[in-house]
């Protein structure tokens, strides 16, 4: 297995630098790279949309990383994806019912998240953006904990150190630097854990992401940059963010980048395991571009019909990550109807619990405004807290 050659090989293929042909052809090359999405993307794929196990020259080096995956493991991955989708669907419904102020759905991205999430060890640390519900699931974060911020009762609400899963980050790209710094610390500690940072294709335009690439490369930090390229940043297609395929960007920073079929849970697991192993072995950062699709709206407050075509969505529907694993399990006899029926029941139970917990979620106490502004206290906060408490108390019995 040659790690570097993957990084070096891929870009050469898709950007084809034939020098002899002169300026005219150089211009054509520029145009070609400017429209990466018209070209068939080169993907590491292990499971086709029809559910067939495949291996190509591109994926051969990654296949060994899932050689140990048993049929039971496959059922586990399937279960993760189904339950995550159910949770996500329930949250979308709860938003429609007015129980949540907003929801960012992961529909369509289950394989990217479960594949990468299940590649992690307990001592690895995750820096998510705001859509990583599937990764949170893999980390053992109670999914109802994710809803507090969308309901508006807190800005996170879970202890990041319990599951090594940092708070969601809303400002695009910021967390890639936190992940890098954390990874610098891991290396300093001489630990062999790895760090993974999630972000989107839109986020890759942010300066912070470029700075994270720079710092991680320079310090050879054990961090995996996991970009879910779901083709859209709200209404902006990837053409508005980049002119070369995203994974190729890593090369310019001096570390490998790989594009994986983001709807193939097995390939995502394999590639992330590979990247994490590089990190653990002191080989530095990796960029993984999971080529996937956001099936739903960006969040519950946007309307994708305004900016994207139904045909596009339909084409991606045929690549659904859950259906393809189901097809595989059925074709290979890896799961029977009883398994699917039992999972359906489990989904129902989860959905019911999520509904109940959200509806019962209490509003925070008013005085929580003044809590935790500082770790060591602050005279102004103390003064304002006392003033406001006195103000509130002045109403008591007054009405």
């Amino acid at each position, binding site marked *: 297995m040659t790690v570097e050659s993957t990084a070096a090989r891929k870009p050469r293929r898709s950007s084809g630098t034939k020098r002899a042909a002169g300026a005219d052809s150089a211009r054509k090359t520029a145009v070609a790279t400017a429209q990466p999405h018209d070209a068939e993307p080169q993907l590491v794929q292990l499971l086709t949309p029809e559910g067939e196990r495949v291996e190509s020259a591109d994926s051969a080096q990654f296949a060994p990383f899932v050689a140990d995956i048993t049929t039971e493991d496959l059922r586990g991955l399937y279960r993760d994806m189904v339950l995550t989708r159910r949770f996500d669907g329930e949250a979308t419904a709860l938003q429609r019912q007015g129980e949540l102020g907003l929801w960012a759905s992961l529909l369509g991205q289950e394989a990217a998240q479960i594949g990468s999430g299940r590649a992690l060890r307990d001592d690895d640390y995750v820096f998510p953006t705001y859509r990583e519900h599937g990764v949170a699931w893999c980390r053992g974060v109670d999914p109802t904990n994710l809803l507090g911020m969308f309901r508006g009762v807190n800005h996170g609400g879970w202890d990041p150190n319990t599951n090594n899963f940092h708070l969601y980050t809303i400002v695009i790209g910021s967390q890639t*630097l936190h992940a890098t710094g*954390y990874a610098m*610390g891991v290396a300093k500690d001489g630990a062999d854990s790895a760090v993974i940072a999630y972000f989107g294709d839109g986020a890759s335009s942010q300066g912070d992401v470029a*700075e994270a690439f*720079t710092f991680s490369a320079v310090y050879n930090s054990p961090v995996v940059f996991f970009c879910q390229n779901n083709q859209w940043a709200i209404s902006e297609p990837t053409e508005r963010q980049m002119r070369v395929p995203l994974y190729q960007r890593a090369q310019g920073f001096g570390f490998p980048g790989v594009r994986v079929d983001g709807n193939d849970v097995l390939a995502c697991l394999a590639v992330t395991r590979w990247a994490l192993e590089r990190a653990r072995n002191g080989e530095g950062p990796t960029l993984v571009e999971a080529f996937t699709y956001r099936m739903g709206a960006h969040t519950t407050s946007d309307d994708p019909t305004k900016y994207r075509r139904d045909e596009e969505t339909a084409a991606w529907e045929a690549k659904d990550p859950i259906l393809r694993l189901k097809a595989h399990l059925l074709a290979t006899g890896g799961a029977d109807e009883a398994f699917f029926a039992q999972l359906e029941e489990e989904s129902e139970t989860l959905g019911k619990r999520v509904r109940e917990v959200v509806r019962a979620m209490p509003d925070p106490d008013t005085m929580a405004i003044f*809590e935790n*502004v500082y770790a060591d206290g*602050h005279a102004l906060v103390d*003064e304002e807290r006392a003033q406001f408490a006195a103000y509130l108390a002045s109403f008591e019995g007054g009405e």
Partner: protein
Amino acid sequence: MAVQKLTIAKALNDSLRKALETDPKVLIMGEDVGKLGGVFRITDGLQKDFGEERVIDTPLAESGIVGTAIGLALRGYRPVVEIQFDGFVFPAYDQIVTQLAKMHARSLGKIKMPVVIRIPYAGGIGAVEHHSESPETLFAHVPGLKVVSPSNASDAYWMLQQAILSDDPVIFFEPKRRYWDKGEVDVDAIPDALHAARVARAGTDLTLAAYGPMVKVCLEAAAAAAEEGKSVEVVDLRSMSPIDFDGLQASVERTRRLVIVHEAPVFLGVGSEIAARITERCFYHLEAPVLRVGGFHAPYPPARLEDEYLPGLDRVLDAVDRSLAY
């Protein structure tokens, strides 16, 4: 020997050295802080003695410096980062305001952010654009940050120690034109609390309040006023967030007059907040409106004009006279 005469620069250097010695989790990060020892040599010799793993030359990327410091703090380190000059903090402002300041609150108190951001700030050294600014208000306005500035060597030594020990993020503004001023540092002393104001000179007729580079100007003004028979008290605020209003109030209740002096533009500056609060607290004690002396609402001027721009002895004394005339 416990008491030494040091420049502010050396006091800061000693302070960082002490912090590195005391706590293996303390890291120094920034542009040129390692081999060069910082453009002002505040980190001089530290990399030589503590190694590249503790005193880290970073890429030229301010957001990256603060953003990775946040990550290191999450991992249990206590990064002390240097922003080379005041005007270059803005690429990092996003990380400071949207991330660093809020992490503790967002995590409901589970996460601590012991990050110190050292910024050589303010004017008076004849520098080019973006090297002489006083952006303290922009940080003091942000809940979750603490903002301090020493005016003398002893405070430089002790306040930096205290900032590094703090579990909150501290923006540590260093008055760069005072780096070479000498003062006594007692390394065995019990220092004032980090956010307590200090009476730098006692007086009875009027209080001058200042911090950082302006404290010296105010002490000179008080000395000049004394020759005219006016007794001016000088309060060194030391901290812009929180502000020790109790300490300041005690002084104003004694003198009944207050003039606030800073280099930053007066409009919406730290002085505005002080004027409002002291007016609320001391309304019946005041003999004159609270006056402010500071920078104009204009970009920091070219070096040849900075003597006009910066509040000097005359402008401070003029305000003292105006206050006393009520």
